[in-house]
């Protein structure tokens, strides 16, 4: 039932074609506001903004390959206490939509009155690299499309993106697609729901006919990504195997909890590790130091990560926001993603895939996992 429309790109300016559409969405009152990334005045980063006036969309930059925040968190903030009465359109990447679906299952976000516009995503730069590129006079978006055209991947894109299995968004009402498309001439809009279809009905774009080529492209593209991903899994497992290696992996952690604060699916409203359970008096610390000879301070950093892993493993979407936020550059993504992958496989659960599918830890089957409790 999905609908595909071809959107012409004039003079290679993809951004203009998109921004025209977004402005029309507001002008035609099809949504009352849009959550979009906009270029900062400094022109070296983007920031998510909730825009209600069409002329505020001039600097909208939906394809800017950078992810300063996983917007599932923003939507959670906007809807946790109830969605607004008028509809909001949100332009999201696959990892953001997947995290959002998990948050809805966790009752920490709502999809009411939300129009999800998913965009294809071949990867993002870290905020730092994005800025550096801009300062060198390289426009990251051009770089992205240039590489894509050559069928290459920039080595500078984030690890999370290099091994991402979901470059094409799912669970969106509308999709802006350009992967596997001759994007210098045209991109396409796809409606996946009746909500999305109703919107496209208001536009006079022509039918898009490049779907087959796109599918073939994506099939090959995914194969490469998954190969890279599996290589990363194997290396990571070697790197952290054994308690000592694990401890040394996390040894630079200063317990700031940034990784947890930016993680879109770290779901506890109050973190156990920030509770009184982890407040001790001086004698307690002295006793530990005496008993063990020495203790590393701040204490319990590895425990924090193990606790987070046990919690995140079923819902981690592999966005890498944790790694981005770490002041000490601990490469967290690979460990979290590897652990998550193993656990998700046991339960045959893909986070963010299906809204109706319950979270693995809120359901069970009577006749499963018989071996637990035997060995």
């Amino acid at each position, binding site marked *: 039932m999905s609908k595909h429309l071809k959107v012409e790109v004039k003079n290679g300016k993809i951004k203009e074609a998109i921004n025209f559409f977004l402005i029309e969405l507001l002008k035609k009152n099809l949504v009352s506001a849009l959550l979009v990334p906009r270029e900062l005045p400094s022109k070296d980063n983007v920031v998510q903004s909730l825009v209600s006036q069409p002329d505020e969309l001039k600097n909208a930059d939906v394809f800017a390959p950078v992810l300063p925040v996983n917007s599932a968190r923003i939507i959670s903030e906007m809807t946790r206490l109830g969605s607004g009465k008028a509809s909001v359109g949100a332009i999201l990447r696959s990892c953001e939509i997947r995290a959002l679906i998990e948050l809805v299952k966790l009752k920490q976000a709502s999809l009411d009155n939300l129009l999800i516009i998913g965009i294809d995503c071949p990867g993002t730069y870290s905020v730092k690299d994005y800025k550096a590129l801009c300062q060198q006079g390289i426009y990251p978006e051009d770089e992205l499309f240039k590489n894509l055209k050559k069928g290459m991947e920039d080595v500078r894109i984030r690890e999370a993106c290099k091994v991402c299995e979901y470059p094409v968004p799912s669970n969106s009402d509308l999709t802006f697609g350009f992967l596997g498309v001759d994007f210098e001439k045209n991109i396409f809009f796809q409606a996946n729901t009746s909500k999305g279809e109703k919107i496209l009905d208001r536009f006079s774009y022509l039918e898009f006919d490049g779907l087959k080529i796109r599918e073939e492209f994506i099939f090959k593209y995914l194969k490469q990504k998954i190969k890279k991903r599996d290589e990363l899994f194997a290396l990571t*497992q070697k790197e952290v195997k054994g308690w000592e290696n694990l401890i040394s992996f996390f*040894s630079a952690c200063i317990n700031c909890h940034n990784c947890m604060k930016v993680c879109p699916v770290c779901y506890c409203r109050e973190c156990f590790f920030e509770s009184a359970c982890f407040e001790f008096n001086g004698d307690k610390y002295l006793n530990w130091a005496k008993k063990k000879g020495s203790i590393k301070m701040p204490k319990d950093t590895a425990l924090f990560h*193990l606790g987070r892993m046990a919690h995140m493993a079923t819902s981690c979407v592999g966005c890498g926001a944790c790694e981005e936020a770490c002041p000490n550059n601990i490469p967290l993504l690979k460990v979290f993603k590897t*652990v998550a992958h193993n656990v998700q496989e046991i339960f045959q659960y893909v986070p963010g895939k299906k809204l109706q599918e319950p979270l693995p830890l809120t359901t*069970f089957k009577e006749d499963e996992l018989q071996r637990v409790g035997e060995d």
Partner: protein
Amino acid sequence: MKVKEPKIVAFLCNWCSYAGADLAGVSRIQYPPNIRVIRVPCSSRVNPLFILKALQEGVDGVLVAGCHPGDCHYISGNYLARRKFTIFKNLLDYLGIEKDRVHFTWISAAEGARFAEIVKEVTERVKKLGPVKRLVKNRSA
């Protein structure tokens, strides 16, 4: 030289396994004295962190026991616990922490003898691994 006796923490659910341990006691069934029992309302009360923390603080092994599947006092607590422990075991395995340090099992209120058997078996397996040096040393944890 004598092998150092391991210390094992046992989280027992109030409604089945704890009663099972009690039965072993009143029936005067012998079992190794290595176990330190912590009574919990249900096996699903046991947070994996309790287990990690216990190991980190120097116990050599952990046993978690609850009602048999289908018999949980809270109907589904142990089914959910089983999923939680599966994740946790997988995590331990992935991280290369010795599997035999952590045991999950089901013991009913009528299974005093089974309780004693399990304590015996767990104690032996933990003894084989030796004291949990690497978790305690904590040079940089």
